[in-house]
């Protein structure tokens, strides 16, 4: 009898102890969460301060990046119309046309990033999944930057291992994928010094498209790695910086990677160049995500046990 009672007591004691332990660990979790939130708050504060600066910088940047190129396109094309039609002027005209193309290419790139960002921020971006030939897409994206590389006397080292049949019918969103690749390549070209080499590798691994770019340019400091995906963030905000852009490229690329369930890894050291590697899984929701049963008669939303709200 007495024994029983002690047993009972020790059992309830154990229960109590368990309860206490549980509560303590819950508190610990809450504490951790609180300190994490505090850290977030601090970061947020700092970002708020930065954002005002960024806004005014963006406006002056627009002048540099959009109005100036337009002015030179106007000027150059006007010059071409005035070139006298003699064979010896052919070279001059061609040279000017090339300059116009370069300016227009840059403008087009910058503007598509701005519009892509605007669309993403409006919540108007949806994955449009089709079968894509990865080799073709990668090649044509790189091709667009050839001339810029030539200008800066850079070498592109390509290792495109995309000959498997799976790579010829990879289900993903080609337009978004192209934007992602173009931004990575553009950054590598922009932030490299003249006559550097850029390594581009692409392959298919475990059903994922792997694409990496290694430059030997200025690199990124460790404290800056956290903010490189922030919009309008340019690590060198100097208006006269030789690096063009609005600081939208990586934020757009990241948002599009999110949509494609992709990942990005970065290795970089100041002065030693950067390495960006993305991996994007094959997207299986060709038409629409799984989870909604489709029946043949199109009555796809007949739930058997739904609740009404």
């Amino acid at each position, binding site marked *: 009898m007495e024994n029983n009672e002690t047993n009972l007591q020790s059992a309830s004691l154990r229960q109590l102890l368990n309860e206490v332990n549980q509560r303590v660990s819950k508190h610990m979790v809450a504490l951790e*969460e609180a300190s994490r939130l505090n850290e977030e708050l601090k970061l947020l504060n700092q970002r708020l301060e930065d954002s005002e600066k960024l806004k005014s910088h963006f406006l002056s940047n627009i002048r540099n990046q959009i109005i100036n190129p337009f002015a030179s396109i106007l000027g150059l094309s006007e010059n071409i119309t005035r070139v006298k039609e003699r064979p010896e002027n052919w070279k001059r005209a061609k040279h000017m046309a090339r300059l116009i193309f370069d300016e227009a290419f840059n403008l087009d790139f910058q503007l598509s990033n701005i519009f892509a960002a605007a669309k*993403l921020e*409006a*919540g108007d971006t949806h994955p449009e999944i089709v079968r894509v030939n990865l080799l073709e897409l990668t090649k044509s994206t790189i091709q667009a930057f050839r001339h810029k590389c030539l200008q800066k006397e850079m070498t592109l080292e390509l290792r495109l291992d995309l000959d498997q049949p799976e790579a010829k019918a990879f289900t993903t969103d080609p337009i978004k994928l192209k934007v992602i690749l173009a931004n990575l390549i553009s950054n590598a070209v922009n932030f490299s010094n003249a006559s550097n080499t850029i390594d581009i590798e692409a392959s298919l691994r475990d059903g994922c498209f792997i694409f990496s770019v290694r430059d030997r340019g200025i690199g990124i400091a460790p404290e800056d790695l956290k903010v490189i995906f922030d919009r309008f963030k340019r690590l060198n905000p100097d208006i006269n910086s030789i690096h063009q852009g609005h600081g939208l490229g990586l934020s*757009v690329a990241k*948002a599009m990677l999110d949509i494609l369930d992709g990942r990005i890894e970065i290795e970089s050291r100041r002065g030693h160049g950067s390495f960006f590697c993305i991996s994007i899984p094959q997207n299986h929701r060709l038409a629409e995500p799984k*989870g909604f049963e489709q029946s043949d008669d199109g009555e*796809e*939303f007949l*739930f058997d046990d739904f609740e009404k709200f």
Partner: protein
Amino acid sequence: MEEYPVHFLYPAAIFVAPKPYFIKTILGSCVAVCLWDAKNRIGGMNHYMLPLWNGQGLASPKYGNIAIAKLLEKLISSGAQREHIVAKVFGGGEVIETEQSNFFIGERNAQLATEVLRTEKIPIRGESLRGKLGRKIIFNTFTGEVKMRYIKKNNT
């Protein structure tokens, strides 16, 4: 069932239906806010993954504070009248238990919806928040009715 077009709403997107639509989506720890103007029969839905935009990346509707504000803005610019708008809120389940960084994400998403709607003075007419399960929902933007069912596992 009526022959309305169907729009599948992806995470971090917003859809406001220009005419009667079925908007459907799948939720895990994400939250979807359905706003509906009962008088003009205009409805829209968002689907956000994280509660607050803190300057990281783009200011996209991936974040609740932005997603709700933008949905409201779009709804009103599509002809909805603020005083007739009501809300139904879904999701915020704790379906991911492993990743540390996702701690309480569902809970915080759910809290944010309730808070923002309260400050915006939009009445919540129906909700199914929190819990351990994912959800599928279909929103009829003509009747304002939302059908929901629980699903076992989902990450979004």
